Each structure stands twice: as C-alpha cells, then as structure tokens.
C-alpha cells in the first residue's frame, strides 16, 4: 500500500476534527476566514473521498485500505478502519453532500464559526461510522454524528406555526435527538451481547463476521439461530429508526422542518443512510440467519414506508414536510431492497442510498434557498416562482424528477433494481413499490405546478435567483445524479464486491 492508501481513511476522520479544532481557536470576528477554511476542508474531504472511490479495487474481495491502530487491548478494541464497496459509495456520498453543504452554509450569518464547528464534528462522525470496521468505534462515531444535531437545530433552526399546531425548533431538535439516541441504545445492547456471545475478545467486524459464518461447531454459524432471532430485531429497529423505518419515522419530518438548510442536507442526505448501512453492516453481516427470519417484516415495513410516506407527502403544505415525508418514502425502497436479500435488490438498495442522499440534499438546498428569499415554505402561498427564479426552478425540478424515478437520473436505476429484486422475492410488495413511485409523481408535479408555474403574485416580483455560489453548490449535486442515471457502471462495479460480501454471509 502506498502512503496515501495507508492514510486516506484516517484522514477522512481526522481532517474534519482538525478543522473543527482550528475553527474553535479562530477569533469570533473572522467570519470570512472561517468560511474559507471550512469550504477548503470540505473540498479536501471530497477529493480524499474521490481518491478512495478510484483506488478501491473492484475485483478484490473483503475489506480494503485496512488500517489497525491498537487502542484498548484488555477489551480488544482497536481503531480499525477499512471499507467495502458499499462503504466506498457512502464515503463518496458524504464527500459530495458535505462539500455542497459547506458552501450553502456560508449563507449562515449568525455564529458562523460555531455552526461550522458543529458541522465538522458531525461530518467526522459520519465518515468515522462508514470507515470503522470495529464495532466499538462504529458505535462511537454513530453517536458522535448525532449529538451535534441537537445544538445545530436548537440554535440555528427555525420555529414554524401552522394553522392548528406549532413546531418550535426546540421541539424538533429534542424529538430528533431523543428518538435516535433511544434507538441507538438497542444497537449498543446488541453489540455488547454479540461481543460476549462470540467470546473472541474483539470488536473487530471482520473477525466477528468470520465467527458468524464459521465459528460454531463443525464450521457452522457461530451465533445460534435462536440468538440471532432475538438480537436481530434490536439491530433492525435501532438502526431502522435512523433510516426512517415506519412507524418510528416521525422525528424525520419534524426534525427537518426545524433544521437549518445544511443540517437537513447532511441529515437526510447522509445520516439517514447510516441507519440502512448499519442494518447491512451489523445485521446482515453478523446475524444473517436473524436477517432471514425477519426479512419479511422488514420488507413489509419498507413497503409501508414507501406508500405511507408518499401519501402523507401529498397532503403536506409545507415544502420541508413534503421533502421530509418523501425521504421517509424513498428510504422505504432502501429497506425493501435490503429485505429482498437478492443480488439485484441489494445492489439497488445500495445505489438508492447514494441516489437518495444526493437528491434529497439538492431538495433541501433548493427549499432553503426559497425560504431565505420568500420567508415562507407554504405551498399555498408560493406561486409562479419560475418566472423570477429559473435556476431554482430547474434544480427543484431535477430533484423532483429524480425522486419520481425519471430515466436518465439516478433514482430510476436504483429503484428499478429494487423492483427487480422485489418481484423476484415478493411480487405483491413489488407492485406496491411501483405504485409508490406513481404517487410520488402526483405530489411532486402538483407541487411544481403550484409553486413554480402559474401566475405570480405581486409580492414575489422582487425575488432574486440563485447566486453563483449557490448555483455551484447545487450543480455539484446534479453531476452525480446525471452520472449515475446515464452511466451507472462505475458505481455498480464498486457496490458489487460489497454485495458479494453480504450474500456470502447470507448463504453461510
């Protein structure tokens, strides 16, 4: 391994922490410098992520770029880093969304420096989770990514008053963090229990996965079927909540309505993926038989997510609620794809994680830009914006078309693969999935027609379109959407070895 290969994964974790530390030490007034340091650091992270994407060997098996730094030997905890195909894609996703988000965040006027500090702690947590192959650090970074949310939403968020209910920002922040932390306790319990049951004295995921496959008597599965059946639901619910699993999804719409733009972008774009990633990494890899026992439940819940989220989105009148519920709906496809346990289905789920991440970040970026200009997100009040804000309209429509599965954009390929997997295993649920995509078309197009088209009220006459900087940030999100839609090969090739890893575990 070259020097760069040896250290790139660490860099992904250290650099955001370092950035946060540097920003902390910066005097308060130096706002411009804080912005440039942040954007520069995000760019460096994006380049490092791209490096991981390109250096990853698509034909090799197992974890790559592995690096082990002993940390606490009595318990067998190491700072152990490595990536498989799925993690590589998530690293790239994080790089893209964090870069775009850091640029958008430059619009924040209040306490800019502290905002960026918390943002980079969050980014460090996300990267750490994706590249850790030690359960202890996996969990540590998972929690690290969640905690800054509370302050980010509580301080920089926005409170909303609706016709018959209020959503103060503190409410959204509290709900989001409490629900996710409560669920993560289940995951923590599952991790400790697996550590004890395996009795290997290590938290290493490769070692535990090897044990799960062949650590038992006569080379059989290491964890007994009963054990897996009991522990898997902890993992499924614990991580599933962060992926928006119905009926534990309600933190998502409320949280997003309160959150500032960049936080929504990172949260829906990347953090929700941690949940699905956790189910695959911990659930499928370490508890394959438990996965098989619970697959149908996950499948049904995922389908409920798709339909329930889409129908709920149709009735919303706040742009952020629409996008929030649409995330609930789209994450359903990820859960469905995972539950197929089929090579095409899991590939689709992985690609959908990436596609949804970029798409929803674009959605929130656009909605944020509209809110900054009009000071409302009410669909019933906004109208005819296209004639004043061509670029904003274009970006929203691109995100919308991605979400309704238009060919040529990333969502289509991902959802199609999920459908193929679903029809191979549970055709009836597959049909419901396709119907969900049609409902998406209804609410997206209704919204576009109402908000962007039609006659414009005079109060929107003075609106300004995107600045070049905002346009650049959003354009950076459109590139991967188009790339995956037109030329998905390189992305699918990266996923393939990761899927093989999971399938090997499932087949025992």
């Amino acid at each position, binding site marked *: 391994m070259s020097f760069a290969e040896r250290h790139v994964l660490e860099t992904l974790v250290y650099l955001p922490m370092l950035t946060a530390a540097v920003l902390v030490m910066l005097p308060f007034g130096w706002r411009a410098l804080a912005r440039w340091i942040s954007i520069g650091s995000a760019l460096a992270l994006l380049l490092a992520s791209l490096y991981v994407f390109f250096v990853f060997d698509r034909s090799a098996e197992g974890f790559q770029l592995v690096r082990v730094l002993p940390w606490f030997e009595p318990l067998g905890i190491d700072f152990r880093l490595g990536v498989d195909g799925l993690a590589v894609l998530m690293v790239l996703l994080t790089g893209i969304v964090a870069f775009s988000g850091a640029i958008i965040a430059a619009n924040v006027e209040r306490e800019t420096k502290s905002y960026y500090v918390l943002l980079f702690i969050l980014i460090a947590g996300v990267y750490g989770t994706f590249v850790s192959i030690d359960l202890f650090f996996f969990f540590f970074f998972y929690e690290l990514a969640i905690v800054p949310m509370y302050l980010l939403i509580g301080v920089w968020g926005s409170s909303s008053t609706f016709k018959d209910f209020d959503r103060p920002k503190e409410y959204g922040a509290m*709900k989001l963090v*409490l*629900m996710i932390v409560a669920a993560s306790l289940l995951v923590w319990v599952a991790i400790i229990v697996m550590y004890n049951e395996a009795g290997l004295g290590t938290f290493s995921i490769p070692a535990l996965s090897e044990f799960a496959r062949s650590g038992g008597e006569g080379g059989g599965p290491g964890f007994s079927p009963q054990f897996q059946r009991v522990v898997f639901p902890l993992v499924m619910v614990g991580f599933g909540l962060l992926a928006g699993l119905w*009926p534990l999804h*309600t933190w998502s719409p*409320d949280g997003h309505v309160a959150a500032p733009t960049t936080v929504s972008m990172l949260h829906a774009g990347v953090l929700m993926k941690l949940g699905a990633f956790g189910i695959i990494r911990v659930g499928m890899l370490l508890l394959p038989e438990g996965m098989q026992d619970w697959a149908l439940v996950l499948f049904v819940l995922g389908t409920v997510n798709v339909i*329930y989220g889409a*129908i*709920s989105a*149709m*009735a*919303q009148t706040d742009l952020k609620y629409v996008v929030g519920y649409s995330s609930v709906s789209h994450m359903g496809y990820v859960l469905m794809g995972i539950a197929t346990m*089929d*090579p*095409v*289905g899991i*590939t*689709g789920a992985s*690609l959908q994680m990436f596609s949804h991440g970029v798409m929803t970040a674009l959605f929130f970026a656009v909605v944020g830009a509209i809110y900054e200009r009009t000071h409302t997100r009410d669909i019933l009040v906004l109208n*005819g914006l*296209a*004639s004043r804000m061509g670029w904003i309209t274009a970006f929203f429509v691109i995100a919308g*078309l991605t979400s*309704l599965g*238009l*060919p*040529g954009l990333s969502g*289509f*390929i991902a959802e*199609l*693969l999920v*459908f*193929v*997997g679903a*029809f*191979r295993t549970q*055709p009836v649920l*597959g*049909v419901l999935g*396709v*119907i969900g*995509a*049609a409902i998406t*078309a*209804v609410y997206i*197009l*209704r919204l*576009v*027609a109402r908000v*962007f*088209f*039609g*006659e*414009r009220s005079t109060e929107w006459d003075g609106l300004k379109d995107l600045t070049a900087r905002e346009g650049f940030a959003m354009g950076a999100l459109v590139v991967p959407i188009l790339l995956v839609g037109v*030329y998905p*090969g390189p992305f*699918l*090739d990266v996923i*393939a070895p990761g*899927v093989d890893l999971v399938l090997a575990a499932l087949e025992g």
Partner: protein
Amino acid sequence: MEQAWLIPLYGVIAFAVLALFRGFLPWQGKHLSLLAALAAFVTFWPVLFDMVGRGVGLYHFPRDWFTAGDLSVGWGIIVDPLTVVMLGLVTFVALAVQVYSLSYMRHHGADDPRIGWYYAVHSLFAASMLVLVLADNLLLLYVGWELVGLCSYLLIGFWHERPAAAEAAKKAFITTRLGDVGLLIGIVLLVVEFGTFDIGTIMAGVADGGANGAVVTASAFLIFLGAMGKSAQFPLHVWLPDAMEGPTPVSALIHAATMVVAGVFLVARLFPLYEAVGSAQLAIAAVGIVTVFVGASLALVETDLKRILAYSTVSHLGFMMLALGAGSLTAAIFHLLTHGIAKAMLFLAAGSIMHAMDGQTDIRRMGGLRKRMPVTAAAFTLGALALSGIPPLSAFWSKDEILVAVAGGLHPAFLVALLAAIALSALYMARTLRLVFFGELSRENERVRESPLPMVGPLAVLGALTVGIGVLALPLGGGYEGIGSFLYDAVGGPHPFELNVLWTVVGTTLAVGGLGTGWWLYDSRPDLVAAVRTRLSGVHRVLVERLYMDAAYQWTIDQVVLRVSRGLALFDRRIVNEGAVDGTGRVVMETGKRLRYHVTGVFSDYGSAMVAGVGVVALLLWLRA
C-alpha cells in the same frame, strides 16, 4: 446501418449545448437544434438504403451498458423495417416542425424570450423518441418512453405562466404515468421471468412457450396499459385534448405524429407477445374501437380547432390499435405513417390560422378563411380528405388495409362498428372544413393574411407527401415489394397489397357519404343541425361535457385521493407522532414527576426503605435455598 445510433445522438448533443449555454449563443442557439434535426434526417437515408440493399430483416447491434448483480443491461439498437419507418417519420416531421417554428414562435417579429429552451427540448424530444424506436431492450425503450413524456410535459407547459398550460402539463404527465405503472410492472415481470431485458431474447422465449403462462399474460395486459396512456386510449385519453395548451408546432410533432403513437409502436415491437396472448389482443381491439368512437363523437361537438384535431388524433390512434388487435401490424404501422403526416399538416395549418388570427382557436369565429389563406386552406382540405379516406390520398390506402384486416381477423361486430366509424370520421372533418374555411368571411377577419414561407413551406411539403405517400402500398421496384412485404409480423408473413374491391368500394362510399352529409348539413341545413341538437339535447350535453370523464377524474382526485391523503397525514401527526411518540415522552415525564415525591430527604424514610429492601432480598435468598 450500425450508424443508426448516431441519429438520436445529434439531438442529445444539441440539447446539452442549448440547455447549458443557450444564453451565450446567437439567437439562443436555435439553429443548432435545427442543424441537429437536419443531420438526423440526412443520416436516416443511408440507413434506409442499407436496409433495402442488404435485404429487409431484423439487424441487431448489441452493446453493453451496465451490470447489476446477476443482471446485465445493454444499450444496443435494433434496425428493422418497423424501426426504419419510425425513424423516417420522426426525423422528417421533427425537421419540418422545427423549420415551421422559426416563424411560429415569433410574436410581433421578436422571438419568444425562451426560444432557446423551446428548441433545446425539441432536440431532446427527437432524440428520446429515436432512442425509443431503436432500443433493443426494454430498459432502454422505457428510458426513451419516459423521456418523451418529460419533453411533452415541458413543452405543454412551455408558457407556464398560463395556469391552464401548467395544469395541462401536469395532467398529461400524471395520466400517462398511471399507464406507465402497468408498463413498468409488465417489464419487470418479463425480466424476472426471462432474466434479461433484451427484447429479442424475451420474444423468442415467449414464442417458445416454455415460460410461465400467467406471467406472460399478465405482462401483456400490463404493458398495454402503458400503451393506452401514451397513445391516449379510452379511458386514459383525457390528457391529449388538454395538451393543446402547448405551442401548436408541439401539438403537430408530439401530440399527433410521434409521441402519441409510441403506444402503437410498443405493441408492434412486442407483437409476438400479443400473438401469444390472444385475450390481450382482443382487449386491444376492443379498446381501439371504443376509442375510435369516443374520439370521433367528441370531435363532432367540439368548437376549438386544436381540440377537434386532438380528438381526431385520439380516434385515429384507436384505428391503429384496432388494426393491431386484428393482428395486422402492417395496417397499423402504415396508418401510423399516413396519419402522422396528414395530422402533422393539419396541426401546422391550424397553427398557421392561429398565427394569422392572433391565437384564435374558436371555429365559430372563423369561416371563409380560404379567401385569405389559400395555401393553408389547401393543406387543411387535403389533410381532412386524406384522413376521411378519400382516394388516392394517403390514409385511404391504410384505411383500406385496416378494413381488410378487421374483416379477416375479428368478429363481424368490429367490422360493422368500423364502417360506422369511417362515416363518422368523415362527418366531423366535413363540419370542421366547412366552418373554418368556407362560407362568408366575417368582417373582423378581413385583415387576416397568409403566413410566411417557413410556415407554408412545410405545409406544402407535407401536402405533397399526403398525396403521394400512398404509393408505398405498391411494389416500387429496387427491392421494395410494397408495404405488406416490407413491414409484417412473423405470423402474418409478407403479403402484397390487395385491393379488395368490395371493401374499397364500401369504405370509400361511406367516407364520401359522411363528407357529403356533413357538408350538406353544415352548409345548407344548419337549422337541421340545431334541430338534432335540441332533439338529442341529452346526448349533446354528455358529449359537450366530454362524457363527464374529466369531472369524474377530478372528483376522484379531490374527494378520494386527497381526502385519504389528508386523513393519513392527520393520522400520522396526531396518532403516531403526537400520540405514540410524544405520549411515550409524556409517560416518562409523568413517571418522573410522581417518583419525585418519594425523594423526601428525610433520613428515617430512607432507613425504613433500606430495611424493607434487605428484608425482601433475605426472603428471596431463603426461598431459593
């Protein structure tokens, strides 16, 4: 022939350049789009001659796209007679319409401020349509299918400040999407069954008979749902008349000649599937004939020129489906071709009138226009006569083929209905012709002038084709043995054009009779028309209200869909969120509050609790021992 993949490429490039850089180009780069259309049309010819030279047949040029799991997808192309006919029609009409738009999209001498975007989407449309007809696999076909739908959406909503246009665009997209749910499910079912997207392999597998019959049948029906949406078949036809909110050249290209026939093309492309599933074929015929009548009768009472043409399109798409249902791919695709040219011309003529009359589309405000717009009037008349089935104009030949096919392949009831439909089609055409171009010129229209050359030029070319294209039915030499030997399905096989005297005479008589009756009624006996209208006021009202279908759909959306969705959203907020989730929080909080009172701070309380605790533990240990 391999270069056929270049044909869509020009449009893709033109779209990409215009979408990103139109602001920096002279005239917003509209000539670039024109150039792409021209290049596509020019490239079509070598493909055609190569095909005729090498021998008519199916040429497959596979190419890899991506692999996901155990599924490989290609983006290769098929070049066969069906594709070639579509390539010719699409590239030609696209070019004609783009030339026409040069003038039409100018208002008071200045280009529409968004003209670059208009041409960009035109290019993307042509490219997507060409991808759709060239695709060798169902995924690529679906890509083209959805992208033409997107372009249709963008162009219907081109003047998006107009609420009606925004509404119509949305309606078109959503209605066709409804059909596409079926299409996508059908495709995925076939893919899961046969393990590939490749059309050739799937069709071979279907013909083989080894596949799961239920799956094949289900996918045949489901895929036809998609075709119904796109090709505006009853009851999914409602979007097409509204789509007339788009600029008229768009109506000519997308909503008459090309995109709306995609459904017909799809069934033709997957014809072996429908030959294998007889029930689906019968369903196609039934939907087709119903659509013919719905379209024709709604056209009869409509007063908006463009909407009349739209209903006429609906009706003719029904004819094509009927032909497919009767098992004649030749008749369907031949009619697709002749109708495409004639209807594009009719729309361009209508656009010419609108251009001259400041956007007027109400035929009650017209009349006598032939005196001011001779070329437009001639073109419109030619198109109307052709579509009524008057020899030797284009659609006469294809209609004859349809008659022969229906007489030979379907229950006689279909034949009777078809004959009645032919008369009805001629009737509404005669009405339109009479009310728009003949009679007295009203005073307000005195200043109407014929449109400029870029508009009447395409009309003249399309007119010449409408007169001449019927000869394609006959053997022309040079390896071309007539449409029936060029374009045929595997089961029917090649067959020469047969001039069945009986059906020709009957069909032509009915057409002439329909035209004559229509002319007589609307020219000499308007009183009789009024009398019929009063007499059948109930029927008239139902027709004017478009069979109440738009109202019914709207009611379903407002009263059912939106209510359910609002109910669910309320359930989510009140029950799931504020009830279950916040409730859990409240329970914890309340428990804490209650327990708080037991923390008294009095030493003796703690002491007694401790003693009690020790007692319980001791008791448990004693019991265990």
